[in-house]
Every structure is written in C-alpha cells, then in structure tokens.
C-alpha cells in the first residue's frame, strides 16, 4: 500500500471518474423526464391561455394568472366530483385501515379456530379472481351499480394489507398482550387498547397505499357507474379530455353572460381546461407523496420479505 492510498475505500479504478459523470448525467436525465411533465402541466395551468394553447409555454409561466382555477371550479360537475373523490378516499381508507388492523391481528390469535384456513381463504383472492365480467354481473345483481358503496365495500378487505399487518403484529412482544390478558381484558379490548396504539407505523403505510389507490381509482367508475353525480375526479378528468372543446365554449359563454369581456389570455381553451383539471387531480399526490415516501418504502420492503 502506498502512502497516498490511505485505505481500501479510496482505491479508485481507472474509469471511475467518467463512470461517475455518465452515471450522474443519466440519472439527471431520467429524473427530468419523470419530473418535467408535472412542471409542464403546472406552468401551463397558470400561463396566458392563448399562449399555452399554442404550446409555447415550455420553461416558465408566461403571463402568470390564476383565473383558470376560479373558472374551472365553476365547470359542471367538478365540485361534485371533488366531493366524491374526497369521500371515497376518506371512507375507503378509514374502513380498510380498520379492517386490515383487525384482521391482521385476529390471524395471529390462536384462539381463532381454523385461523390458517380463513387466512388462506382471504390470501387466495390475491392470486385468483373470477374475472372482470363475472364480478360485474355479481355487482350488478347486488344492486351496487350506480351506488357510492361500490367504491368502498369491495375494497375493505385487502389481502396484501392483512399480510403486512399480520407480519407486524407477530414482531410485537408477546408480553404486551399477555399482561392485558392476566388483567382479564377481552379480545376486543386488547385490540383497541393494546395492539392498535402499537401499530401506527404499519397502519400509516396501509393508509397511504389505500388513500392513493382510492384517489387514483378510475376503473370501478368505468365499469359500475354511469350516474355523473358519482363520478370521481379521475373519471371527470377523463371525460373532460374528450369534451374539452365544448367545455371551453361553455366556460367562455358563462363569462360572456356575466358581462365581462373575456380577454384572450384568460378565456378558456381546451388546453387550459385539461391542464388545470390535471393539476387539481395531481396536486394532492405531489404534496402528500414526498412527506410519506418512507412509509411507501417501508411497506414495499415488508411486502418483499413476505415475497
């Protein structure tokens, strides 16, 4: 070992520097490819509408204004859709978190007879389903089409979440529960008073996964809902994509009715409508995601352990 070579960590191979450069450049490029579209939507939604419609807003906002957001909120059905999205996210997340916590805990309890049979009964559905159409027919027969609860009920029991919670509960010290049992606590008391408060990290993971899934869900509306009052934001965005032209006209007319002369910069174009609604849909994700990233990572790692 020479004097300059102070330890194994500092040993450099030939080609290290070019490799690092290419590596950084490659990741920078891919990160831009992933991040720029979001930035593009945002700057276009706050730029002068006549310029953004030409596709000329690329690097920073041109003719900054926020009136798109005011006008978009007046579009038919949008506030309703927001409420549907929020309601299904809150109720859907709440019920699935509680159900996962409870079932994950129960499947660690030896007092539950045939627990491994029931556990498999649930886990099997992760790998096998009857198929799109048979499920559709069942939901239709149950009268759940055009019903808000079609967003909630089928999503309550999630096998993957139950695996996560069960693995977690198994890692908790047994003594917690034993002490409570000696004091004569019943199973429900033990769950709510002892286990539930100790499960917060894993429940945060389950909550964030299911909140994102509920917020993003589109297919259940496509299959089971034709009533516009029950459209969540994702679906409304999809319909806007197809009817942006007529909506832009409607928004312009509405402005005309108010007696104000719509300037080219603020009157709605198909582009401005699409971009603004897209930003409204994506913003919660962009804000929430970095805050909860570690929970996502923890979740997928725990899931991987289970394989």
């Amino acid at each position: 070992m020479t004097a300059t070579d102070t330890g194994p960590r500092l040993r450099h191979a030939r080609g290290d520097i070019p490799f690092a450069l290419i590596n950084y450049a490659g990741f920078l490029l891919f990160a831009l490819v992933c991040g720029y579209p979001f930035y593009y939507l945002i700057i276009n939604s706050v730029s002068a509408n006549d310029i953004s419609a030409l596709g000329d807003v690329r690097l920073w906002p041109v003719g900054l204004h926020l009136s798109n957001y005011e006008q978009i909120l007046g579009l038919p059905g949008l506030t309703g859709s927001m409420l549907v999205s929020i309601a299904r996210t809150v109720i859907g997340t709440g019920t699935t978190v509680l159900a996962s916590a409870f079932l994950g805990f129960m499947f660690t309890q030896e007092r539950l007879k045939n627990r491994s049979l029931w556990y498999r009964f649930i886990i099997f559905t992760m790998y096998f389903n009857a198929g799109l159409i048979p499920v559709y027919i069942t939901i239709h027969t149950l009268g759940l089409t055009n019903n808000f609860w079609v967003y909630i009920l089928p999503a309550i029991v999630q096998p993957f979440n139950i695996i996560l919670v069960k693995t977690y509960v198994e890692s908790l010290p047994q003594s917690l529960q034993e002490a409570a049992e000696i004091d004569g606590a019943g199973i429900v008391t033990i769950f709510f008073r002892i286990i539930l408060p100790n499960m917060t990290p894993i429940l945060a993971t389950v909550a964030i996964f299911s909140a994102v899934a509920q917020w993003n869900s589109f297919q259940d509306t496509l299959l089971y809902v034709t009533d516009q009052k029950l459209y969540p934001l994702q679906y409304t965005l999809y319909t806007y994509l197809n009817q942006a032209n007529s909506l832009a006209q409607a928004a312009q007319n509405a402005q005309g009715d108010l007696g104000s002369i719509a300037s080219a910069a603020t009157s709605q174009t198909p582009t401005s409508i699409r971009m603004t609604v897209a930003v409204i849909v994506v913003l919660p994700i962009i804000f929430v995601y970095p805050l909860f990233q570690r929970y996502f990572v923890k979740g997928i790692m725990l899931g991987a352990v289970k394989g």
Partner: protein
Amino acid sequence: MFFIVLPFLLLVFVFSYLPLLGWVTAFYDYKPALGLGGSEFVGWMWFEILVSSETQLKQIGQVMANTLAMSFLGIATSLLPVFFAMLLNEVRAKWFRNAVQTLTTLPNFISWVLVYMIAFSLFSTSGLVNTTLHDWGLITVPMKFLDTDQHVWLTMLAWSLWKGLGWGAIMYLAAIAGIDQSLYESARIDGANRFQLMRYITFPMLMPTYVVLLVLSIANILNNGMEQYYVFQNAFNREHIQVLDLYVYNVGLTGNSLSLATVLSMLKSLVSLALLLAANAIAKRARGSSII
C-alpha cells in the same frame, strides 16, 4: 371469536368467490334485464362461436399476440430496475440520490388517466414535442405519436417504464441496503474495484428477489390489466393495443355479449391459475419455499 371476523369473510366471499357463480352465464345467452332465469340456455354455443368463425379466430389471435407481446416486453425489461438500483447506489451525493428517487417514483403514484393526459399534452399534434420540433424547423407537418398504429407495443412499454421503473428499483435499493457490509470490505481488501463489487457481490445478492418477481410475472402473463390500454386506445391503434383484459371489457360492456365475455374471463382465470400453480411448483423445487 369466529363471529367477529365473519362479516369480513362474508365481504371476501361476496366479492371474490360469489362471482364464480357468474361462470354459468357462459352457458346462457345472458341479458342483464331478463336475469339468468329469463335468459336462454345455449350450452356450449359461445365456446363454439369462439373457435368457429375465421374472423373471430383471427381477432383472438391478434389479442393473444398483443397480450403476450406486452408481457414478454415487460419480462425482457425486468432487469432494468435491478440495474437502476445498482447504479443509483453508486451515486455518492445523498441529496442527489434522494432527489432522483423522489422524482422517478412519483409517476407510479398517478393514475393512468393522468399519464394519458400527460402523453396528450406532450405528444398530441398540438403538443409540446410537435410545436417544439416545428419551431426548430425540423418538421413542417405534425407527427402523429398517439393516433397511429405504428410501434404501439413499444410506446406502451415506454409508458410502463416511465411509470414503473423508479418504483420497481426501490425494492432492490432496500435489498442493497441490507447486504452485509463486511462482504464489500473483504472484497476491497482483496483489491476488487467498484465494478467488480457490483458484478460479484451486489448483483448476485439481488438475484433471489429478482427471481421471485420474475416467476410471479410469468404467472401473470395473461394479466396486463386494462386501464393503461383503455385510456390509450383509439380508432387508429385499436388492433395492436387490445390486450386480453381490454378485449374482455370491449366485448362484454361496450360490445353486446356479456356471455361471450364471460367465456373469455373464465378461460383466462383458469389458465392464469394453472400458470400460477406451475410457477409456484417450480419455485418450490428450485428454492425450497413457495412464492404464494
């Protein structure tokens, strides 16, 4: 004890097992308005229709080709997240690593509708790419990226990678963090350089995770999901974008035959189950533990 979990078991039964009863509609000419009782029993008619007419067979052939092409392209690129993780692990600056991780996993958390919205604003005839190319004088006529039947499979693969690559790498990054550091230290003392460490330690240590995921993706070869293909489908690319899941939807809910779609649903579920059991048996033999 059993009674407090019963409501949840009932939910699972109703939404996951009860639909199996729906398989009988494969043998009826099912009309939702009439119910099963009012619909006519037709025996194996739908199965015969499926294989009898030339055009039908040709269509199914195309659908299967699309389905398998998308699955195999996915499998062929399944090592990319491994390389992504290994290379990102070589980045020394922690802030850069974190920033890359956050930005590249973000697309995984938006819906396919939004992905399509992004595709539309970037690649439609009046989108960013076309206007930019036009302003630079490279093209005079807008290029059609979306309304075309050219390279549909590759475009779909590209969007899947855009959405999923960063997230797919996270699991491997976690696995890398869990590798015993003494392995690297002793290899370094033996004079191994960075590339040798990657080649002879990191890569082999990631293989068990990779193989499990690979086996699962082989078992899922018929399940591409339909959302991605549904939002990207249009009159131009329909022939090459229709994967099995989308085809079942198109036949059953926008076409007119719930029964024919049930036949397809049912066959798909059965084949998938067989594939999964086979994959599981192989995994069991190869590594001694099952994957499901």
